[in-house]
């Protein structure tokens, strides 16, 4: 797949939406949609993507699309997919259609986790894509279960006593893997061909697939509007956000940085981690580095175990 070919794909998500300057989320949406050869029906959780793409009477969606509520994109798409199976069985529909759900990390890690878990366990044939901007960015930077340790948010701010989020995030990718579904992958908006290939695989396999895609928020991570891709790239290079996939239980790391890049290189690009660079908070950065290194070792071990 060359980027040139990618640019020729039909436009399923079109300009005119109101996402913030420099937001990489629409790139994720267009890339994932381009990876499906069949028509796609989308369900969207409440969040940045939904509010910026469907301000009535406008819509950026050139394909059938539904927004139900915040926590139920997976349950909603499971209903759509079941209706499709019912009609296929009765011969009421001829076309092959793919089913896709989008949710942010709030709508996926947190409030929508049960709905996602249920849909994965039931084995619906759909792809779930979490665009992960590590917090409730749509409502102005509140802490979520995806927010990294040490990050400043409005609900777990950095102050005189507390230094931002005091817990490490849960691992959504591994939670999805624990459902024993055919395909789970972690991707980043910085590695677009990797994302495209993963989306393609996710659409092609039968049964549920989950993609967790790193998506920096220019507005609330406090980065320049031209820096989103650069920051995402640093997340991958520092192993803060490894690119890997789990196909039928088999782990594969898709990109192994050639050298160990310290996490400071990633952290220092973002205002949300500014307080960590005060001398008295040095130990917090060390704690983050340790967490990353241990996680990477675990991942290598899982890959080697096959």
């Amino acid at each position, binding site marked *: 797949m060359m980027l040139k070919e990618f640019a020729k794909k039909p436009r399923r998500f079109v300009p005119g939406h109101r996402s913030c300057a420099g937001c990489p989320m629409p790139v994720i949406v267009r890339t994932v949609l381009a990876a499906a050869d069949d*028509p796609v*029906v989308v*369900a969207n959780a409440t969040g940045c993507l*939904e*509010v910026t793409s*469907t*301000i*009535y*009477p406008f*819509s950026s*969606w*050139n*394909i*059938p*699309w*539904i*927004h*139900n*509520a915040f*926590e*139920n994109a997976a*349950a*909603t*798409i*499971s*209903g*759509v*997919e*079941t*209706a*499709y*199976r*019912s*009609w296929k*069985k*009765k011969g009421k*529909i001829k*076309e092959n*259609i793919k089913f896709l759900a989008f949710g942010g990390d709030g709508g996926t890690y947190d409030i929508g986790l*049960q*709905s996602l*878990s*249920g*849909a994965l*366990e*039931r084995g619906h044939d759909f792809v779930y894509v979490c665009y992960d901007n590590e917090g409730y960015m749509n409502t102005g930077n509140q802490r979520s279960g995806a927010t990294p340790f040490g990050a400043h948010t409005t609900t777990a701010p950095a102050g005189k006593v507390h230094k931002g989020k005091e817990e490490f995030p849960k691992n959504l990718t591994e939670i999805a893997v624990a459902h024993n579904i055919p395909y789970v992958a972690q991707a980043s908006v910085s590695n677009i061909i990797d994302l495209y290939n993963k989306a393609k695989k996710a659409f092609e396999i039968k049964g549920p697939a989950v993609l967790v895609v790193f998506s920096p928020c220019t507005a609330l991570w406090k980065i320049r509007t031209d820096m989103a891709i650069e920051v995402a790239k640093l997340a991958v290079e520092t192993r803060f956000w490894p690119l890997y996939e789990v196909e039928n239980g088999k782990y594969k790391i898709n990109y192994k940085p050639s050298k160990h890049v310290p996490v400071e290189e990633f952290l220092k690009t973002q205002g949300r981690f500014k307080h960590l660079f005060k001398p008295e908070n040095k130990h917090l950065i060390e704690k983050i580095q340790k967490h990353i290194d241990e996680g990477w070792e675990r991942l290598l071990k899982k890959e080697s175990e096959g």
Partner: protein
Amino acid sequence: MNEKKILPLTGAYAAAEAMRQINPDVVAAYPITPQTPIVERFAQFVADGIVDTEMIRVESEHSAMSACVGASAAGARVMTATSSAGLALMWEVLGVASGLRLPIVMNIANRALSAPINIHCDHSDSMGARDLSWIQIYSENAQEVYEHNLLAIRLAEHKDVLLPVMVCQDGFITSHGVENVGIFPDDIVRNFVGEYEPEKFLLNINDPVTFGPLELTDYYFETKRQQEEAMDKARKIFLEIGKELSRITGREYGYFEAYETKDADVIIVVMNSTAGTAKVVVDRMRADGKKVGVLKIRLFRPFPYEEIADVLKNAKVIGVLDRSMSFGANAPIYSEIKNSLYDSERKPKLQSYIFGLGGREIYERDIEKVFEELLEGKVSNKKKYVGLRE
């Protein structure tokens, strides 16, 4: 009138029997007492290949209604069932279903709300959802549950309505009590319910639709106004479809059943199974020469204000029996009855009674006592409680 088969069925099984004949494309449901036997029975129909339905055994009622919304927006005919806490958990998505104008039909086995937790009948669950733009039909017995389901699917899917419908029955009392239920032939019923033909739907990939966009200060209000318009239209359409159904069943489907109300001095207003008990009491008291009657409300949303005022206005005293409360305010049915009579020139006296919360039994003698009190003109503007230890 058609040849019907008489089967011993509970209210739950009567609902399942209607669902079997309707043969929806998708049923998404989660178990909760006392609704469970509806979906259990239906699941067996699915397992035995008696229906074509695809069932989604979701992990919660929130997901049940969410999946129903997805399936209905996809273009499918969709049904489900719930009770009590299940309906409460669906609350958010109930408003989505009606706001997106999706004709989902849901059976409710009415049950009390927590806390304290209680599995028995009262109407707190569906009354709590009365302002969410769902049509609500209440059923006295298993026969009505069956027939109301057939009416509900047509009403919901009518192109001038397109609103979801709840068909309510009393938990345990109706849902688990066995009665003789007349089931009409499959072909006649299927011909009556027909096929659902949606105009806009997700699975029509040639005509992509955005369902559930963000509407702000400039459009939201108009959308809600359209829902009210649909509710208004549903009144007349309910009667039209009811008339059509009458030709099959021989029974009538008015907004309410006015039982011995014409010359009545005293009328009790009540819904669901207690109406049956009240009618027995009316027969006995009529035999003693007492002019009493019962108004059993079938259609609670949209509410038939004018027609109800017409029936009630000539009585001297009205007693309204609510099986739920609106804490700190007038009880739901009482409140609507009072509203109905405001525009009437003749205004009977009114008394509000609360009964049967958490499944507390109500006996014929209780209802007789209420009638006697009302015949003596004992009314106040305070709530009275039937069968309560003060």
